């Protein structure tokens, strides 16, 4: 994980987006290792969100076009308690497979947060306040990790992000395995 800025289009969601909405259970049968099957996680990422609440404020915007495998959106902005519910690691991984780089939410459910970091899939940034009613889907965003700040290039505003804290080293390493190798816990 480099220190480069993360740039991309915003996809905005409300609160308590659980992992069944991020990747519905019926899709958890595809192989994550077979490149041809893996793509489907990108297609179905966030497909469990009710249509009216998908891509706020207007709604009815799919995260990934049902005909495609990759999303037009790189940064998910959501309300509190993102990723609650099932511990399925397919959730952060499906966001990554769809092309997302980061999620920005005021709070996360613990297992989703941990899976995002330990698997090195996406960076789960905590916003200082809930941005789900300020940022709009399609806004151009730029996250600066050095400054703990996210700029909204469309609206000409900026928002504070909390420092990554104790997980920063794992995020920097790219996941728990890389981190464990760097610290000598795992050989190879």
């Amino acid at each position, binding site marked *: 994980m480099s220190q480069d800025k993360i740039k991309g289009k915003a996809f905005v969601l409300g609160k*308590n987006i*659980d992992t*069944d*909405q991020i990747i*519905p*259970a*019926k899709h*958890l*049968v*595809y*192989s*994550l*290792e077979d490149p041809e*099957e893996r793509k489907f996680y990108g297609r179905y990422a966030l497909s*469990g*969100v*009710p*249509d009216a609440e998908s891509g706020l404020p207007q709604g009815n915007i799919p995260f990934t076009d049902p005909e495609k495998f990759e999303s037009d959106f790189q940064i998910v902005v959501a309300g*509190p*308690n993102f990723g*609650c*519910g*099932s*511990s*399925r*690691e*397919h959730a952060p991984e499906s966001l990554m497979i769809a092309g997302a780089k980061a999620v920005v939410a005021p*709070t996360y*459910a*613990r*297992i989703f947060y*941990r*899976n995002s970091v*330990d*698997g090195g899939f996406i960076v789960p940034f905590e916003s200082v306040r809930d941005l789900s009613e300020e940022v709009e889907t399609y806004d151009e965003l730029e996250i600066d990790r050095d400054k703990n700040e996210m700029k909204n290039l469309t609206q000409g505003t900026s928002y504070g992000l909390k420092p990554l804290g*104790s997980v920063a080293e794992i995020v920097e390493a790219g*996941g*728990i*395995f890389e981190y*464990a190798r760097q610290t000598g*816990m*795992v050989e*190879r």
Partner: protein
Amino acid sequence: MGMTLTEKVLARHSGNESVKPGDNVWVDVDVLMTHDVCGPPSIGIFKKQFGDKAQVWDKEKLVIIPDHYIFTEDKYANRNVDILRDFADEQDLPYYYDVGTDRYKGVCHVAMPEEGFTRPGEVLFGTDSHTCTAGAFGEFATGIGNTDAAFIMGTGKLWVKVPETMKFVFDGEIPPYIMAKDIILQIIGDIGVDGATYRTMEFAGTSIEAMDMEARMTLTNMVIEAGGKNGVINPDQVTYDYVKARTDHEFNPVHSDEDAEYHSVYEYRADKMLPMVAKPHSPDNKATVEEVKGTELTRAYIGSCTGGKFSDFVAAAELLKGEQVKLDTFIVPASTEVAERLRTEKMNGQTYMEIFEAAGAEIGEASCAACLGGPSDTFGRLNGPEVCISTTNRNFPGRMGSKESQVYLASPYTVAASALTGKITDPREHF
């Protein structure tokens, strides 16, 4: 300064005299559990990271229980079980419970205690959020992802941030119409679906001490629905009797100290509890049954790790015996042991299965079934705009299969009472 049960278990397993909330520690794992949804990707990561020829850290400590997508034609789902079987063969795993054999168990969280894998004082991780169920036995048990599971498979360790503990104290006699499900729905409604995020939920008091293990499991099972990292109940003779009846494995119980420090303490009177539901579309969307009674339903569902244990079906049978359901009613035993007891044990001369069949309910095979939707042909799955009352654990949009459906979570008593009328019905009418 004393320690809570969670702090003591994490201290012991990280080689520390003591730990405090916020500490990051590496703990030694006693048991790792996985199933057919998250097992295959965990195995994939394990092989990628440790090599194709790598052996798991301790085959006596790995338990694999396929339970999610079992009775389906879905070829990908069936392939997942093949992957587990091959891995169990290759690693010579003693605790693999294969589908289609008499070893098949059903839902992992109910099978784990049945087989003696949930023991006081231990550390259990599982690739399923409801792994927290095992905290009812006085251990640290929580759900993790595939990467963390693969890490444990190779090293036997995992990093944990020591959580603060919230204490929920219940005193007084639990009324006959109240089940543990009503109590946990009340708590989740009070603190919210993120009210215990990163924290332990500890249940205590004379009402909890009076509960059997299955009722205690219902409480700890649903702590994840409040965002809890884990749930615990201090072990006592009830715990020891249950565990010793199922395993000879030694265990060393720990208990919260009198002077342990808690994040917060909530006190309830059990005798004041009311039958509760969680309305669509969130487990914290609480209402008393009184407030929503008369709501028209299209389906009733009794099953899952939360509400498919033997005592859950005994409660349902008390109301369904000799009656006729007015709704499509699905009965799914959590485990094959539960199913066997329902087939053989009787209530006033009829087996439980006979009671359910006579009442017009449909009975499925032991598995997770429709609790989480699953493949399209899953037994009991909501495939359209159904309004379902269910003993399961989650009612976020689409959880049981369809974004158009609405799910009310309730106790087995409330679900059975509602199945008999076609509308949400207060079980107190039967008491």
